[in-house]
């Protein structure tokens, strides 16, 4: 079941990524792909977050699916789109990724590990009701912020 879900999601991501590539953008493909990765985090977090904030009714199946998606996203091999030479130092406004993410002492990998652990904990309680999701969402959001703080420039 989990395997099927992984397959389905990988297909979706591949489709999203290739649409983006085929969209005629002259953009750097690594930047397009990592933004797509981030947008799918955001998409699933929105489903869960709106339930927690009371903007949407709690739906156990939808919550579980969104949380599972977040887990799977953290397990994808992202090495082909986080590559040196594709930061705002080289590409300017096209990307908000700061060079520090690829420099020695970068903590990005560690933070990625924290996010993975936080999403697993979230998926473990996603079917248990909205009161259970709220507290589990905290560490997820904190991991997103932990990486955006040093490695993503504020909007221009």
């Amino acid at each position, binding site marked *: 079941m989990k395997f099927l879900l992984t397959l389905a999601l990988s297909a979706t991501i591949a489709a999203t990524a290739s649409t983006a590539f085929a969209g005629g953008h002259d953009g750097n493909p690594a930047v397009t792909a990592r933004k797509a990765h981030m947008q799918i985090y*955001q998409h699933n*977090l*929105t489903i869960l*977050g709106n339930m927690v*904030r009371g903007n949407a009714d709690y739906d156990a199946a939808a919550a579980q699916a969104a949380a599972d998606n977040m887990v799977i996203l953290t397990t994808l091999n992202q090495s082909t789109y986080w590559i040196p030479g594709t930061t705002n130092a080289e590409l300017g406004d096209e990307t*908000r990724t*700061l060079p520090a993410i690829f420099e020695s*002492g970068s903590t990005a990998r560690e933070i990625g590990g924290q996010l993975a652990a936080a999403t697993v904990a979230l998926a473990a309680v996603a079917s248990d009701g909205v009161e259970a999701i709220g507290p589990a*969402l*905290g560490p997820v*959001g*904190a991991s*997103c*912020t*932990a*990486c*955006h*703080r040093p*490695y*993503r*420039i*504020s*909007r*221009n």
Partner: protein
Amino acid sequence: MRRLLIITAFGAIATLAGGLWVTRPLTVDADTVSAIEGNAAAGEMVFALGSCASCHTSPDGDKAVLAGGREFTTDFGTFVAPNISPDMLNGIGNWSQVDFFNALRQGTSPDGKHYFPAFPYASYARMTDTDVANLWAYMATLPSSDQPSQSHRLTFPFNMRAGVGVWKALYFRTAFVQPAGDTERGRYLAEAIGHCAECHTPRTALGGLQNNRWMAGAPDPSGKGKTPGLSPAQLKWSADDIAYYLETGLTPDFDSAGGGMAAVIEGTSKLPPEDRAAIAAYIKALPATE
């Protein structure tokens, strides 16, 4: 050209200012201040919302030790945050409570010199006696570091502390900027401890906040990118959205905060919910500037 003019003017004024009465470093009333009894537990919140740690921890050291060493590159040169841990020799462990009040309230050092406004005392100066004393009591409980403070690397004439007296005469005002409305608590948290305007308000060429464009967004003090404008003409979030962001770092469309704002949220996430709601109400009540 404009920069050259500024430098010349600043240099000339700074030279003069050394001897001028209006630009001398001021001090607080020592008798009143030394009598105040601080509460360390209550000071933890002030420390968190003031995000003192975001500037004063060492860039590669322990997150709990205020060893200093972080660098801030500005148009005037590079500032290096000093060690403000309770170490007797290299920190501020030998300071009196009066010294601490002078630093936060007047931007004046124990040896009677001006501090540079890269230390955002112009906002902290609005703090109540109680909160400054509580903060001082809390900071005494933090671990020490014997790492010596480093000198700033500033270009002439900005390396002259006397010149800061001119800056103070022009811009250092401890009155609140916005009317209180029904958000007096929110205004206090935002304009004093939270020092929101230090990042969100654009500055004049000499580094003073442009009060007529309060919170209208500005070049990010980190030198990278911009801070967003928060006036109602710019930010369409509800008060609930703002309070939720200050609690979780999550925007209404579930992106997460980054840059300098992450440190602020570390502080606001520790506030009681009614304080976050008060800050949100203050933001919603700002005048609509662009």
